[in-house]
Structure formats: structure tokens, C-alpha cells
């Protein structure tokens, strides 16, 4: 019998998280290359619509794993449900998107099944009858090809943007949906989550800015923010920052770009002293042109920059401002 890949798609408060399609696209590629079957699962309460949506994709089966106890997401509930499904269906490989929700429960799930999770993969490599997963290490300075060395089930999560969701192939006919009702005993779920909310004041909307000048820890001191601000003003740009700058209170939180901040796609993104950690990059890689100034030639930001300048930003920004003034006449 062929081996099976199980993709666990993500739903939050009854809505499918679209990054699930990226994982599905990656899983379809692995399934095709390895000659394995592909199944999908969605976990929650009242999730028939999501199951049907996934069943339209090229998968051989969709499990709708249902229990009222799964209505709000909790790690205890999701692990109990998925442990049951995986123990009985025995997939070889379980794939999920590397979202905050999955980070919250996937290591627990793998541990509960005495197995392991290769987290935050950006792709895979076929190596004979093994599948290795590629992941970033040392904040993106290196990539590693990682192998499973124990027994299945194996778990892996894909980083957002590793595959294109719109390339998840549709099936010829809808796949069968099997509803799996799980019993989750009282007391299993210990956490009591409240509804998600957004912190009130989001004064700045950076998503509409055509030009963004963004500063990272390379700016060194709070008083140096002023230099970046002057450059931004000259370019009629909005000022933005990496997370550590906002954590330090040098710029307000609503100017943070990245997975826990805003996602932008301006005409120009000028990154000053930003290393290019993936959590930052997911928020700005859609920019039409990326210019990076960083003193470290190996900084990961240069992997996605259109124009790169390896230099001390304090040497470059002043003459740059002079040239811009000249150009503007």
C-alpha cells in the first residue's frame, strides 16, 4: 500500500486560513515525486464547509475531525483529536503551515506520538526513498537539509511563502469527506481562550504608502532614528521598522513590518540596517523594489534585495540625502 501524506489545514474561528493552500501545494509536489497518496484533515466544530472547500483540491480524501470541544482552538483539544486520527490512519508524513496556531500545538502533537517535527521548512529534497526538509538556521544565515532518523509518523511545517497557494491543483471530482467524531473527555482541555482582538489604536496604515524607509537594529541608537526620518521626508516616504526597534519603543508598534506587524507592498522599500529575518521579510517581500543597506555582506536581506549596498549606513545616508536634494532641484 502506498504511503500517505496528511495535510492538516488551518481554520480559525470557522474560516480556512489561505496559507493552508501553500502547504497543500507543497504536499502535492512531494506526493507526486514520491508516488505517495495525499489526504487532508480539518479540525474543529462545524467545519463541513471548509472540508468541502478542501475536497475540491487534488487530494484522495478529507477528514472533518469534529467535536464541540474543538470550537475554540486549544492545544489540548487539537492534540487529542489529531493524535486519535493519526494513530488510526497512520500517515507517514503530516504536513502543516508554520503558523502561530500550529507552532502552539504541533511540537506537543509530535511528542505525544513519540515522534519529531521539522519546523519552519522552506522546501524539501528527495534523497532516495527519503524526504529531507530544508529549513533556515542561524536567523537565515544558513540553510540546512534535515532528515528524520526515527520511525514515522513524521511531522513537518512549511514556512509561509514556501509554495504558491494558487498552485494547489484542483481535483477532477470532489474528494470524499469522512467525518470523524472525536470524544474529548471533560478536563482534557485545560486552557480557556478568549476571543482574538486587535489593540485599539492602529493610527498608521503603512499598506497604502508608495515608499517606505525602514530601520532595523543597525540604526544603533534612538537618536539616530532622526536621520532615517529626514531621509523618509525627502523621499515623501513613510518610516517603518523591524520589531526590535518597536520593542525598544524607538518607534510606535504600528510602524512595525513583519509577521506580527503590517504587511506592505510599496513601490520602494529601503531597508537600513535590517538583517532580513524571515519574520520581517514576510511583511515586505512583496515590495516592487527592495534596496538594502547593511554592513554585513552575508546578511539574508541581500537574498531578496534588488539593489544591495554593503556599507555602514551612516556613511551612505548623508551623501544620499544630498544627491536626492540635488535631483529634486
Amino acid at each position, binding site marked *: 500500500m502506498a504511503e500517505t501524506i496528511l495535510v492538516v489545514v488551518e481554520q480559525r474561528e470557522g474560516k480556512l486560513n489561505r496559507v493552508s493552500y501553500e502547504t497543500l501545494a507543497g504536499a502535492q509536489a512531494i506526493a507526486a515525486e514520491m508516488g505517495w497518496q495525499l489526504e487532508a484533515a480539518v479540525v474543529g466544530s462545524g467545519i463541513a464547509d471548509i472540508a468541502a472547500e478542501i475536497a475540491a483540491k487534488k487530494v484522495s480524501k478529507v477528514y472533518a475531525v469534529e467535536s464541540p470541544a474543538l470550537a475554540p482552538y486549544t492545544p489540548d483539544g487539537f492534540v487529542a483529536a489529531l493524535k486519535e486520527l493519526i494513530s488510526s490512519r497512520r500517515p507517514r508524513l503530516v504536513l502543516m503551515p508554520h*503558523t502561530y496556531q500550529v507552532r502552539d500545538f504541533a511540537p506537543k502533537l509530535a511528542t505525544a506520538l513519540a515522534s519529531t517535527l521539522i*519546523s519552519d521548512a522552506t522546501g524539501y529534497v528527495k534523497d532516495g526513498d527519503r524526504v529531507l526538509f530544508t529549513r533556515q538556521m542561524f536567523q537565515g544565515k544558513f540553510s540546512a537539509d534535515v532528515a528524520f532518523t526515527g520511525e514515522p509518523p513524521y511531522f513537518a511545517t512549511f514556512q509561509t511563502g514556501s509554495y504558491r497557494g494558487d498552485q494547489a491543483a484542483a481535483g477532477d471530482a470532489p474528494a470524499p469527506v469522512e467525518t470523524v467524531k472525536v470524544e474529548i473527555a471533560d478536563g482534557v482541555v485545560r486552557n480557556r481562550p478568549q476571543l482574538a482582538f486587535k489593540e485599539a489604536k492602529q493610527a498608521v496604515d503603512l499598506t497604502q504608502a508608495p515608499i517606505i524607509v525602514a530601520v532595523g537594529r543597525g540604526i544603533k541608537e534612538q537618536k539616530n532614528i532622526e536621520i532615517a526620518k529626514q531621509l523618509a521626508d525627502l523621499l515623501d516616504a513613510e518610516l517603518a521598522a523591524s520589531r526590535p526597534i518597536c520593542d525598544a519603543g524607538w518607534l510606535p508598534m504600528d510602524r512595525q513590518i513583519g509577521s506580527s506587524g503590517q504587511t506592505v507592498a510599496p513601490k520602494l522599500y529601503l531597508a537600513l540596517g535590517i538583517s532580513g529575518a524571515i519574520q520581517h521579510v514576510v511583511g515586505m517581500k512583496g515590495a516592487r523594489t527592495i534596496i538594502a543597506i547593511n554592513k554585513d555582506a552575508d546578511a539574508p536581506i541581500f537574498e531578496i534585495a534588488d539593489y544591495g549596498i554593503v556599507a555602514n549606513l551612516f*556613511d551612505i545616508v548623508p551623501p544620499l540625502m544630498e544627491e536626492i536634494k540635488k535631483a529634486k532641484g
Partner: protein
Amino acid sequence: MKILVCVKQVPQKDAPLKLNESGAWIREDVSYEVNEPDAYALEEALRQKEKHSGEVVVITTGPTRAQQVLREALAKGADRAIHLEDPAFVGLDAFNTAKAIAAAIKDEKFDLIFTGLQSDDYGYAQTGVILAELLGWAHATIIMHIEKSETGIKVKRELESGYFQYVEMPLPAVLTIQSGINKLRYATLIGIKQAKNKPMRKVTMAEVQSAISPNLQKIEKLYIPHKAKKTVMLEGSPAEIAKNLVEKLKNEVRVL
């Protein structure tokens, strides 16, 4: 409240990293520092202790050099430290690191364990959650606020895209702490002095060996990432670069 904080020593952010001969790891002769979110985890533990009294214990696994992060934590106010000391700890996967930590604290009774949400070197984002499962405790990840409640604690989880969520949970629990949850303190001179007399328990690999098993994952190859984009590098003196860049801004990016 008795709180354990897991702190890890990682290569400094600006350290130039090179591959070693095996091609599966880096050369370890670089400068190190404490993993950033772990510093926030320690700060949070110290603040909780100041509010509710109790004890703050720090733990790390790693070679002799890793002791530095424990010393710093003691200087900032942690009460005692546990060092699982052996170079071989560096090569353990997250499952085994968590097992080793669990074994080292089996005779202790903590109310809370804090870890960072993710390490800067491996970046597994797993050790804390695995530890919770091994201990049978509740957990919550990416925490930005913690307060005591009548039945346990109430924490604020960071979600994606600027969303947050409050979660009520019982104790004991494991929390993975996000950078920025608080403002870090500096060690004082008195603190550094006092740290010298604080207890530091050493645990050898032999003592926890029976708890760990062969790694379940293995790095086959470590390498510089393949470039996704063709980057045009602008070179020359700062003045030349500035001129060149403005020319691009005008004629190619068309923003001037």
C-alpha cells in the same frame, strides 16, 4: 511563585559564522550571547517574583562557555542556576534537550517554566512546548503579558498581524515568552558581586543519559542559502554609491 527559566547561549547576532569541516555545523570559535527572548523570559520571571515573591531558577544545557548566560542571570537577580554541562548537549534535537531539562528538574516543584519562544541558532520554536508535554503541564506560546488569577494565570498570547488573545490557564504551566514583553534591566555591580556566591548546580551528561534517546532528526548538510533574486550590488565610495543609487531611484525605480 517558583519559576524556572530556560536560557540558551547562542552566537552573537553579528558574529561572522563559518561552516566547520563536517559541513553540518558551524565553527564554534565565535562570540556568544544570551538568546534574546530568553533574556525577556528571565526579566518576566524576576518581575513576577517581585510581585508575588518566590524563587527564580535558571537552567541551560551546553559546554562550559554556556555558564556565562547563567552568571548574567544570577547577576540580574535569579536565585540559583542549573548547568547541564557537556559539549554534546549542543547536538541534541529539541525533543532530547527538553528530556534532559525535564530529567534535571525531576525533584523540583515549579509553578511555572518560562522559555524563549524560539532560539536564534536552531530556531526550532519547540523546546518549551515539548517540555510541557513531557511534564504533562498546560502551556501557551508567544506570550506578551502574564498575571495571576484566582485559579491560575491569565496570559496574553500574540497572534498574527497585530492580533492578541487572552487565555486563562491552570498552574503548573509552561509559557514561551516573546521579545518585547517587558523592558530589560541591566545587572548592577552589587548584583554581579552577589552572583558569585549564588548556587550553581552542575549536571553531567551521565546523570541525564538514561532520559535521552537517539536524536529523531539530523542535519545532513548546512550551507549558505541559494539566492532567490539577482541583486545588483552598488559599490564604490559613499559619494559614488549615493550618486549611483539616486540615478536608479530616478530612472529605474522611478520614485524621484
